[in-house]
């Protein structure tokens, strides 16, 4: 009987796996931690997509937007760099360091650019600056063949591709990174292609999303965000959730909890039973943002510069467990993935369906 820890054959089970770790004190957590947590759930994926988000990856460029770009063809680099230089101030450019390994065949090229808004812009108008970055990301993804933006936030690095979580980590040298918030995802694609751009996390600005499940409402959600200028170009349903968050929280000004209630709204029968004030509030959210609610099974983790949000669909069709010890909080698809990094947690629990778990940095953690 052949017994191997990798499973290129006999694969008959799956369901994506996700993991997140945050140190609320703002201290750096080693990149290897998220790798071992995620790799413990290797069997949830099938090697067709894994990835990591590292918040706090680039302290030396923490005030610049860090734009990671994937090139399926080296010829795509020139027009992207031209665009970045024309619309923004390019502070620093370098290839993302990678290690060539057998497990990762024929990878695309990855570059990262640290950029500032042009001098002509008012530096205090953060919304306009963020809009400019979003537009440039959409422009590259939509117009420039073979170029895809992997991440575009400040002090955020996203590393993803086609491979198992340990292989992708080795390829991108995850051991060289650390951050106060780390996300990871291993993919088992069901109805969209397993390609490099389809690996999670999906990101825009400092939002990053990892997701287990499927967004049955993708068409509605996609058309909704398109009305606000977002373009879904990455051939995977999860992408739209990143844009929904940017739209709901940054543009519409909703709180994290309110945005979570838009994505996974309470059922009408439960709204009926609420007190009048809550009833009005949830009715208004459902009516105003009907096209932003997510239908279908999901467990998602959303990273942002100040923390992490975990959320299940309303009838809990995907697993999500939270564990904590002191300032460290981990959220994952399986408790074992939490215990891989927190062997003796102070507390472990399963959030209820549709109940957002929001964990932010402590006040004094911010630099």
């Amino acid at each position, binding site marked *: 009987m052949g*017994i191997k820890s990798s499973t290129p054959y006999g694969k008959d089970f799956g369901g994506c796996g996700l993991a997140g770790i945050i140190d609320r004190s703002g201290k750096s957590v080693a990149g290897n931690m998220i790798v071992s947590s995620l790799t413990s759930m290797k069997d949830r994926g099938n090697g067709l997509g894994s990835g990591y988000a590292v918040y706090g990856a680039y302290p030396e460029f923490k005030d610049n937007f860090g734009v990671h770009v994937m090139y399926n063809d080296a010829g795509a680099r020139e027009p992207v760099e031209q665009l970045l230089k024309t619309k923004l101030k390019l502070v620093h450019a370098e290839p993302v360091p990678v290690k060539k390994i057998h497990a990762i065949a024929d990878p695309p090229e990855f570059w990262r650019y640290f950029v500032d808004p042009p001098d002509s812009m008012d530096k205090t108008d953060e919304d306009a600056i963020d809009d400019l970055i979003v537009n440039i990301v959409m422009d590259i993804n939509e117009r420039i063949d073979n170029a895809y933006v992997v991440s575009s936030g400040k002090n955020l690095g996203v590393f993803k591709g086609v491979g198992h979580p340990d292989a992708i980590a080795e390829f991108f040298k995850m051991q060289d990174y650390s951050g106060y918030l780390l996300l990871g995802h291993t993919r088992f694609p069901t109805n969209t292609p397993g390609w490099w751009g389809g690996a999670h996390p999906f990101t825009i600005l400092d939002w990053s999303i990892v997701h287990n499940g499927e967004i049955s409402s993708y068409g509605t959600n996609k058309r909704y965000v398109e009305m606000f200028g977002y373009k879904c170009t990455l051939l995977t349903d999860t992408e739209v959730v990143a844009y929904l968050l940017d739209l709901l929280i940054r543009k519409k000004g909703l709180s994290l909890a309110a945005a979570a209630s838009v994505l996974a709204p309470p059922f009408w029968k439960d709204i009926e039973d609420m007190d009048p004030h809550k009833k009005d509030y949830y009715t208004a959210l459902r009516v105003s943002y009907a096209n932003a609610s997510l239908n279908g099974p999901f467990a998602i983790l959303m990273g942002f510069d100040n923390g992490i949000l975990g959320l299940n669909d309303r009838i809990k069709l995907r697993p999500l467990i939270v564990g904590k010890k002191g300032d460290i909080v981990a959220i994952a698809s399986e408790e074992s993935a939490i215990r*891989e990094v927190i062997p003796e947690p102070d507390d472990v629990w399963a959030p209820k369906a549709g109940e957002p778990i929001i964990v932010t940095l402590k006040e004094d953690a911010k630099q």
Partner: protein
Amino acid sequence: MGNSIKIDAQGVYYKLLNQKIHDALGNGETDIELTRVNGQRYIADGLKNDIRITINGVPGNDLGIFMNGPVITVNNNAQDAVGNTMNGGKIVVKGMAGDVCGYGMRGGKLFILKDAGYRVGIHMKGYKDLNPVIVIGGNAGDFLAEYMAGGVIVVLRMFGRKNGESVTGDYLGAGMHGGTVYIRGGADRKRLGKGVDVAGITDADRGLLKGIIKEYADDLGLDADSILSERFEKLVPLSTRPYAKLYTY
């Protein structure tokens, strides 16, 4: 007493771990203790032997799937789908358990000390002398006993994380057409699924509950009398064949 053996599971892939268990059984071991388990799936799957397995650490999904005989004790939490399609034997979890535990269970016992997740005991069934039993010491999530066709589920709401909350989740017993769910402290009428009703318990119910709770309390070091001191209600299906007309007329 038979022979006993310890197996260190740290970093051991699930296939190899199950192979080690099979090897131990082949060597005549009847008492197996697994240490440093973390997330290995399918432990004891399909085993028919009359053996005991003690698990230290958190076992992975589908613990005891298709099992028909062994007694498993987990000295910690367990994950999703414990006792999936189990046919006989017993699993005792001295912590909480995840979603879809006891799915399609057709015999044996599943005792959970603390809370259980969503969709526990769905499609559970019984036939003649096969009468599966699940006891949940804390709360259960939504869809408990959905499409239940036989067997017994008992929810105690005593040892979970938030015992003050609703006894069970929403859509309780939706589509249930056989078996019984006993709820300590009474059922929340607003959370019933379609096709079920709430009733008081009879002397026959009380006798059945007493036997189940005594065994549960013994296994978990609890006081059976204090568990049984509270009022119980039961959930019963309105019809044993809710869709008869849909397919036959």
